[in-house]
């Protein structure tokens, strides 16, 4: 028996574990990966103050802090099912069944696939996989790659690949089909990039430095977009081209690119082949909420948060007794926001375990989530604040309906 169980050892789960342990709780953290950190592990970028954000170091620091406080960890442990029985949450893993009265789901996010002809060839991977190979395992995914899908995440990872000495031949779009959404539409993609630049500091503005701020954004704004693309950190970004096929005999040998018009349609006869030994697919992130769905949480689709999100309060409670959420399962945001949410969840769990005088701390912690969001360096969605309000409204409506019944 533990006072609390946390599923997910990313920034949210680790911070929640530390907070619980600081309040004297006996907690255990489960993660299907073999080490702590979650998506934080892959992150490596320069912050506006010139300091480097190193996800691996950040993960180790949080993990060590938790271990020092007596938090237990089970790595390589996937949770296949959870259910509520006799006022307890029962957690099924491959090897054991655990029980707790307080369960935190900090399962993070997963990458959306973008099917492209040839995407089943060896050498095609998600952009997050390329990031983990490069930054965590220190293995080059290849010598020369093409990234399909242009968004904040793929641009940041393209830069990381370059830092590791991997050539990125092109950042480009997938061809439009029914399985692609806005990610194949040049105008939509451009708009989202421009939103990014309007918002707080962004990786485009900062990492691409003067070039991005001046030349790149001007070109994008004024002349829609040059056919041959522009370059960011020497990586060609091609919003006017789309990958129509990934080719290769037994593995990736290259991609066929074609010019597309502003509606996203292919201009016939413009096909050209680009050699590459690996291809990354970047469809963006969505909240990984399978366990919340199984548990029976009500959901709401909030595009600004990246997809279907379980209803939750600012205290990080779900509508179910003793079930909490924190981090990207509540919407796609950066690691610092996830950690701040983890802190709130940890305090809520402590309060639910009978630890007194936490109300003010919880209010402060909620405020800290908002401040962190406002100062976020990477904004995954320009309207994140709007998305947060939507889910708050849904929570309030749900609570009102429950009270009336």
């Amino acid at each position, binding site marked *: 028996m533990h006072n609390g169980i946390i599923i997910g050892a990313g920034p949210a789960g680790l911070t929640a574990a530390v907070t619980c342990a600081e309040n004297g709780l006996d907690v255990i953290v489960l993660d*299907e990966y073999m080490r702590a950190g979650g998506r934080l592990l892959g992150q490596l970028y320069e912050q506006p103050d010139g300091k480097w954000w190193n996800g691996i170091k950040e993960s180790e620091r949080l993990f060590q802090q938790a271990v020092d406080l007596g938090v237990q960890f089970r790595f390589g442990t*996937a*949770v*296949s*099912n959870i259910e509520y029985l006799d006022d307890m949450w029962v957690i*099924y893993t*491959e*090897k054991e069944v655990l029980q707790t009265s307080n369960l935190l789901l900090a399962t993070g996010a*997963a990458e*959306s*696939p973008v*099917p*492209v*002809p*040839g*995407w*089943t060839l060896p050498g095609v991977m998600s952009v997050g996989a390329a990031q983990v190979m490069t930054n965590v395992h220190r293995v080059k995914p290849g010598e020369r790659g093409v990234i399909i899908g242009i968004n904040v995440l793929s641009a940041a990872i393209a830069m990381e690949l370059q830092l590791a000495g991997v050539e990125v031949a092109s950042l480009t779009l997938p*061809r439009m*089909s*029914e*399985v692609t*959404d806005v990610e194949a539409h040049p105008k939509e993609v451009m708009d989202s990039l421009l939103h990014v630049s309007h918002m707080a500091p962004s990786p485009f503005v900062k990492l691409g430095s003067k070039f991005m701020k001046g030349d790149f954004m001007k070109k994008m704004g004024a002349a829609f977009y040059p056919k041959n693309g522009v370059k960011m950190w020497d990586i060609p970004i091609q919003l006017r081209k789309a990958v*129509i*096929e990934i*080719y290769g005999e037994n593995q990736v040998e290259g991609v066929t690119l074609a010019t597309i018009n502003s509606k996203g349609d292919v201009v016939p006869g413009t096909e050209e082949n680009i050699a590459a030994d690996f291809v990354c697919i970047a*469809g963006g992130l*969505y909240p990984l909420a*399978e*366990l919340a*769905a*199984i548990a029976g949480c*009500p*959901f*709401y*689709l909030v595009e600004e948060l990246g997809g*279907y999100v379980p209803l939750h309060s600012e205290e990080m409670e779900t509508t179910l007794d003793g079930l909490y959420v924190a981090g990207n399962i509540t919407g796609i945001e950066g690691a610092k926001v996830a950690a701040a949410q983890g802190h709130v969840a940890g305090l809520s769990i402590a309060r639910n375990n009978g630890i007194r005088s936490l109300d003010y701390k919880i209010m402060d912690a909620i405020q800290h989530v908002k401040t962190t969001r406002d100062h976020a360096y990477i904004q995954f969605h320009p309207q994140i604040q709007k998305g947060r309000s939507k889910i708050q409204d849904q929570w309030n409506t749900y609570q009102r309906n429950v009270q009336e019944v």
Partner: protein
Amino acid sequence: MQKNNMIICRCEEVTYADLKKTKEKYNCTARELKLRTRAGMGYCGGRTCRSAVDKIASSLEKQKEKDIIPLKYQPPVRPVSFADLGGEHK
């Protein structure tokens, strides 16, 4: 490779054409599309193709329901060996 031959569900080897044809023929929801083609019902539990199957199906629907996840999640959400399920540990 033609766009139509593109595999959407790797586990069950369901192509884009299979899904499109089925959708057009039966005018079906994401769930029905899954059941008719087996897309998303293989070893990985739909963790790769789920959103693609959902998108193909929902392009027919007028408006997405905001409070219902189109394809239901069911345990186990990760692959579990028969031995572990049956409790016959060795």
